[in-house]
């Protein structure tokens, strides 16, 4: 991957991260959406660390490989917690937020146990295989949870604009990643597909920043209108 394009994408991502944190602080929503902001802070720290390791040891080095996938695992766990925090907010009015947290813990333990079961047979690089497997599995759990959450948003006629748009952004992000993964496998000979992953990494902070900027906590909309099928 040419250095210049990768660097432009990296700068765009870091700027988007800073934008979201600044917007949250200015609009007084930092603690209201703490886990979303925590994920973005962690993503920014991970990207700064990765850039340092990339500059010092290079893209093909073992050091960059380990730093990338260990931080990726941490970020996936943080994103999972962010999805759960949004689910807690959606179900809080039904007093089901406690159950959402119990399900989250069960899912995290279940995914970790399943991942360990898969990699336990492998003798080489057990901890690396485990983090890779956990990261992938948790990513798919997050994907399913986000779709369930969007279903709940429609069913419960959730009207809080910020919440609806944040869930939608998460759904788009997860779906786009699954699509880019398929594209990387289908067309791996084209170098341009290698930019998709890092570019998509900028999507969440940009969309959440726009949501924070454009809508206040009191803004309301009707997500039921988004469903095309008339009843």
């Amino acid at each position, binding site marked *: *991957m040419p250095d210049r394009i*990768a660097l432009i*994408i*990296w700068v*765009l*991502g870091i700027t988007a991260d800073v934008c979201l944190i600044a917007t949250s602080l200015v609009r007084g929503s930092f603690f209201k959406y703490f886990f979303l902001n925590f994920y973005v802070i962690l*993503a920014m720290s*991970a*990207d700064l660390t*990765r*850039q340092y390791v*990339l500059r010092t040891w290079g*893209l*093909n080095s*073992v050091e*960059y*490989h380990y730093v*990338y*996938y260990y*931080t*990726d695992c941490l*970020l*996936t766990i943080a*994103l999972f917690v962010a999805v759960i925090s949004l689910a807690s907010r959606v179900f809080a009015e039904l007093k089901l937020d406690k*159950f959402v947290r*119990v*399900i989250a813990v*069960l*899912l995290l333990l*279940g*995914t970790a146990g*399943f991942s360990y079961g898969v990699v336990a047979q*492998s*003798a*080489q*690089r057990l901890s690396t295989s485990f983090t*890779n497997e956990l*990261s*992938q*599995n948790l*990513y*798919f*759990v997050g*994907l*399913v*949870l986000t779709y*369930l959450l969007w279903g709940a948003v429609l069913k419960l006629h959730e009207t809080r604009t910020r919440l609806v748009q944040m869930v939608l952004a998460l759904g788009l992000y997860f779906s786009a*990643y*699954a699509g880019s*993964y*398929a594209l*990387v*496998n289908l067309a*791996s000979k084209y170098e341009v597909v*290698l930019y998709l*992953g*890092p*570019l998509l*990494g*900028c999507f969440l902070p940009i969309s959440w920043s726009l949501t924070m900027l454009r809508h206040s906590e009191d803004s309301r909309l009707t997500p039921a209108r988004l469903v095309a099928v008339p009843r």
Partner: protein
Amino acid sequence: MSRKLGVLVLAMGILVGAMGLKTIVGANAKTPVMMANGCSPVPPPLPPDPKNPPK
């Protein structure tokens, strides 16, 4: 009791659905690891460890 069971069944259902989806998406995958987060370039796969080759 039934409520606890319901929570457990829901968690298991989500886990099974997620793993099923992963199997479908990665059925013909050539790259073993999915890049998931951040805007840094994705590293290429590591060559096999000569001290500990895969069986």
